[in-house]
Structure formats: C-alpha cells, structure tokens
C-alpha cells in the first residue's frame, strides 16, 4: 500500500529534497529551528510553530536553517537581496496575518523587481505561511488574505488543499524563478493522503477536477474544497451531481478549466474562506460572469464569510467559517433557476 503523509510532512519532504540538490537554498524565519542561541539545547528544538521545518536544522545545520529576530521586514527583505545575489531563499512567515508588518518588501520590492529593472535578474524566492481560521487564535492569527497576494502582478500564489499537491507544488515553487507565496492551510497540516516518495512537480495554473459532475460546478480553495466535497457527497444521494474544482494556484489561475466546467454544468457556486469584499470568490465570480453571459442558466453564487472580523468564541468562529452546509444551501439555491 502506498505511503500516506500529512501535509506538513509532505512540505518538509519537498524542502529537504530540494535542499539536498541545491546548496543555494536556505531557510529563514522565526523559530523554524528553535533553540537557537541556547548551546545547552542546540538547534531543531521546535521546528517551527507548526512543525513544518522540523528536522531540517539537524540535517542542514544552522548555516542553512536560520532563526531570526522578530523582524519580518528585515528577513523578508533579506530574501530579496539574497535572491538577487544568487541564493534561493525560502522564508517562513509564522502567520499570514503578520504580512502587514512587512508587506512593502513583498509587494513593492520582491514583486516589482524583475519588471522594474528591465528583466535583468529574477528574484527566485518562496514565502511560506500558514493561513486559516478554526483554532481559537483570534482575529490576528486566523486570516486567509489570498487576495492581498493575488492582486499584485509579479507574485505567484499557491494554495494546496492536500499533502500530494503540497509536495508537488512546493518543489515547483522552489524551482520557479519568480517570487512565490505558498499558503498552507493550518487545518490541512495534519490531514494525510498518499504521497510518492520521489520528487514530482505540479505546474502552476493547472486546476484539478476533484470530483466530476454534471449539474453544478463548485470552485473551492483549500478548506472550501473539502467542504465542497462533503456537500457533493450528500447531494449525490439525492441524484445531484456536483463537479468540484480546486484551482491549486490562484495566480496564475486556470480559468480555462473553470470556464469549461461552468459551460458544461451551466450553474456555479464559488466558495472561499477569504474576505467577501474584493476576495477570491469575488474575483473568480467576476471572471466567470464576464465570460459566460448568455451561456449559463443561473447567476454566479458565492459562499463567503460575513463581512466581519474572525471572532474568538468557538460558537462565533465556527459560524464565521464557510461550511459544507453553507455550500449545500447555495447549491440548492443555484439549482432553482
């Protein structure tokens, strides 16, 4: 039987493999090793807030797996300069929510550099960061923020929903010569699936049809892929065939696959955990609407969180997060047209 791996370990395996093959790859971030500065403990005491980089400091040493001070602007910007100078940095931002303190180095510097200076030097770097609600960590440690990256030209944005995709997309991200934002859903970290031991690469901009169907298309991203699958499973018992599409990368975005599916089913629901205003669902819905006028049988419907912050209290946070029930409800609605 094929080996199963959790998403966090699949990402770790991809990074380790790439690091064995290329001396120019280094990791930098806060507490990605743990124990730095305490010789009585040594490196690799923590392996990152979610354990994604566990074991890497032991294998590759403190020269290549570096714990930084709490200075996101400095170490994210350092990746830009190091990439310019020929290295291939992988940087961890402990939570996506911290992007606010260092965004300039990403959207003004990393993203624009190749374009602005005449296409002379690519900036190959990967910014990895956990996203997602559901951990009672409050409004500043639970966001998704896909849209903050997708709206910026020059960045590539990757959103694996499972361990298999995470490994293949991470290897591709490290190989890519552009700045890549690699968003890891916290809930996916401990979800497992079959993952080959050898290296494989999943190209960006190629969506996966997770489940084939004929009655309605649901576009999901990370959490909403699993939630859409659960909804589809229930509806199948009533004879409703739901097609579920996982774009896997949001920039580039595989609109060809999405549009082909929508033209087939003629009904579509876009489900997304990021904010509803100017969020991914809004963006994808707009592109579908622009391209399918007169070809589909119902308006494009969205499943998105309410326009409010992510509350702490369990009952409220659970009500904030888009669920399979929300998706099921919208599917039933779109089928009424």
């Amino acid at each position, binding site marked *: 039987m094929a080996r199963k791996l959790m998403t966090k370990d699949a990402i770790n395996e991809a990074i380790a493999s790439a690091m064995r093959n290329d001396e120019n790859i280094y990791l930098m971030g806060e507490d990605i090793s743990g124990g730095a500065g305490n010789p009585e403990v040594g490196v690799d005491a923590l392996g990152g807030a979610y354990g994604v980089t566990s074991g890497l400091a032991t294998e590759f040493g403190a020269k290549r797996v570096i714990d930084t001070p709490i200075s996101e602007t*400095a170490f994210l910007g*350092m990746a*830009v300069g190091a990439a310019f*100078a020929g290295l291939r940095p992988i940087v961890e931002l402990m939570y996506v929510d911290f992007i606010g303190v260092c965004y300039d*180095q990403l959207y003004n510097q990393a993203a624009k550099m190749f374009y602005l200076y*005449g296409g002379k030097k690519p900036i190959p770097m990967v910014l990895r960061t956990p996203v997602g609600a559901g951990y009672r960590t409050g409004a500043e440690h639970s966001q998704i923020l896909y849209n903050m990256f997708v709206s910026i030209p020059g960045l590539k944005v990757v959103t694996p929903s499972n361990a298999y995709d995470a490994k293949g997309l991470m290897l591709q991200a490290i190989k890519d*010569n552009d700045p890549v934002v690699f968003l890891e859903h916290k809930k996916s970290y401990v979800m497992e699936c079959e993952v080959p031991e050898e290296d494989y690469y999943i190209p960006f901009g190629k969506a996966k049809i997770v489940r084939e169907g004929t009655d309605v298309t649901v576009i999901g991203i990370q959490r909403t892929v699993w939630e859409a699958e659960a909804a589809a499973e229930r509806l199948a018992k009533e004879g409703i065939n739901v097609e579920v599409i996982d774009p896997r990368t949001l920039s580039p975005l595989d609109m060809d696959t999405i549009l082909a599916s929508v033209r087939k089913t003629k009904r579509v629901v876009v489900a997304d955990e990021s904010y509803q205003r100017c969020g991914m669902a809004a963006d994808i819905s707009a592109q579908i609407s622009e391209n399918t006028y007169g070809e589909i049988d119902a308006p494009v419907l969205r499943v998105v969180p309410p326009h409010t912050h992510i509350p702490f209290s369990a009952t409220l946070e659970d009500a904030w997060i888009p669920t399979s029930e929300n998706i099921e409800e919208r599917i039933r609605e779109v089928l009424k047209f």
Partner: protein
Amino acid sequence: MDKNSLLKAYHTMLLIKDYEEMVESRTASGEGPLMGLMHTHAGAEAWVTAVMMNLESSDYVSSTYRNHAHSIARGIDLNEFTAELSGKITGTCRGMAGNMHACDQNLNMIAGFGIIGAGLPSAAGAAFASKYKGADDVSAVFFGDGAMAQGATHESCNIISTMQLPVLLCNDNNHIAMSTHSSNNLCHESTTEYMKAYNIPAVTVDGMDFFACFDAVKIAVEHIRSGKGPYFIEFDNCRFGGQWVGDPVNYKTIKQKDEEFARCGVERFKNYVLENTLLSALELENVQNAVTKEIEEAIRFAEESPLPEISDMFVNTYADEY
C-alpha cells in the same frame, strides 16, 4: 592618491554636478527629453564618489529614489541612463523605472528603492549571500537621515549586527527629509548615536570633503572585507536642490542655502588639487570638456531613442512562464 585616481574622482564629481544641473534646467524648461518627476543629488558629489571608488565591481549597492549620483559614480552608461529618465526603450531599465528607480542591476546595483528605508533589508540579504558563499563582497547601502526614522532601518541594523553581515551603511545625512529638518525627526543630532545601540562601529565625516570621505570609506571597507562585520558612516552633507525639481525650497532661508552652497565638494576638491599642484588647470579643463561632451551625447542619444511600444508593457512581469 595617484594622478589617475584624482582625475577619475574629479571626472565623476563633475559629471554628477553638471548632469544634475542639466536635469534641473531641462526639467524646469520642459524642453525634454527627460520626463516626469525628478530628484537630483547635487551636493553629494564628493562623498558618493569616495564610496564608489572604494568598491569593487563584485560588491553590491543598494540605491534609492535619489539615485543619479550613485548610478553615475558606479559607472552607469550615461546614454542609457538618460534614455531611462526619458522613458525610452533604450533606457537602462527599458523605461520601466524612470527617475524614481533607475539603476543598473548588471553593475550589482540591487535597486533604486522608492520607499524610504526599504533598501536596507535587501542590502543585508546580499551581504548574507556573500557570507553564505564564503565570498568577501561588501554590500553598500545608501539611505538618508529621513530613513533613520523608519522601522526597516532599525530592524535591518539589528539583524546586520546580530549576524555580523558585511554591510557598509552609508548614511546620507543632509539634515533634511523632504521639507523637514532632522532636528524635528531624530532624537540624536548625529546618526552615529543610533549605532551604539546596535553595536556597529560608526563615524561621522564631512561629506563635502572628498579626501576625508575617501579615507573613512577605505578604513570601513577594509574592516568589512576582513570579516569584522558591518560599519556605519554618517556623511554630513548638503542637498543643494529641493526634494524634487520644482520644489520651491521655501523651508530653507536664503542665508542657509548660501551657507550650504559655500560647502560645495567639487569646488573644494578643485581648489585643493590646484593649490597643491596635484592637477593642473589644463587637466581640469580637459575633464570639464569631456564631461560636457558626455552629457551632450547622452541627451542626443535619449532624444533620438524610440519610446516603448505598448506591447513592451507586458514584458517581464514574470521571469518564468505565467
């Protein structure tokens, strides 16, 4: 300093000075070919030249939106640079950068950072790469007194010191951030005071005195290249122009402006080499003639160069397939 170096220094300083005069005059008159907002760096000729003359081509340079002096002293192709400021496709950056960002990455200039203080993290990163690869390349970063109030600067100084990175911190202290005097913005009169907190060796030098700057930078670069970690130099100097070309500079009195002009580093160099018979009047005149010709040629090149095609806009958003 040998004669060739003196001639090179004078040539660079004069080229910066005259180039900036040309930028001021052509921007004010609107005669072209330059387009858009211009930031000039007149007043920085002496110290910027002193920094660049101490750097190797393999060293890294992190520039700013006030990048003309840095680029010229680094040896940028003046024709391409002028075409860049004119938005032409033959420009250093294909007309995508303009005055705000122009610099040549092929000269190991990382960027002309348009955001105050944003160039320090990258400079630290290039220095990190140098150390990582076991090279002895120095990473020089230019930033003003205005940037001393930015978070990116302080985060970078802390990490540069903690990791002992080979960074030359070149603080362009012209005591004015846009229209605001540094006494309004900074809690220290000298920016070297901040470096005590970061445990980074720091000196102040008269930025209008080429020879003093050259000696200070030489010591700093030797320190850094020998693996002893970062070094900070505060270049006490003057911004002769406004924040931008067209700025009325009504936040300085005429007396203050005159006092600044009296410190001119190029005049001071010229007088010094003549008084000490290091260079002759004829030699200086030859440099002047060469500089005038180079600038004329650069303007001609920019004028004759084509503007980009609309399709050029879509090139280089990504390096790889998208």
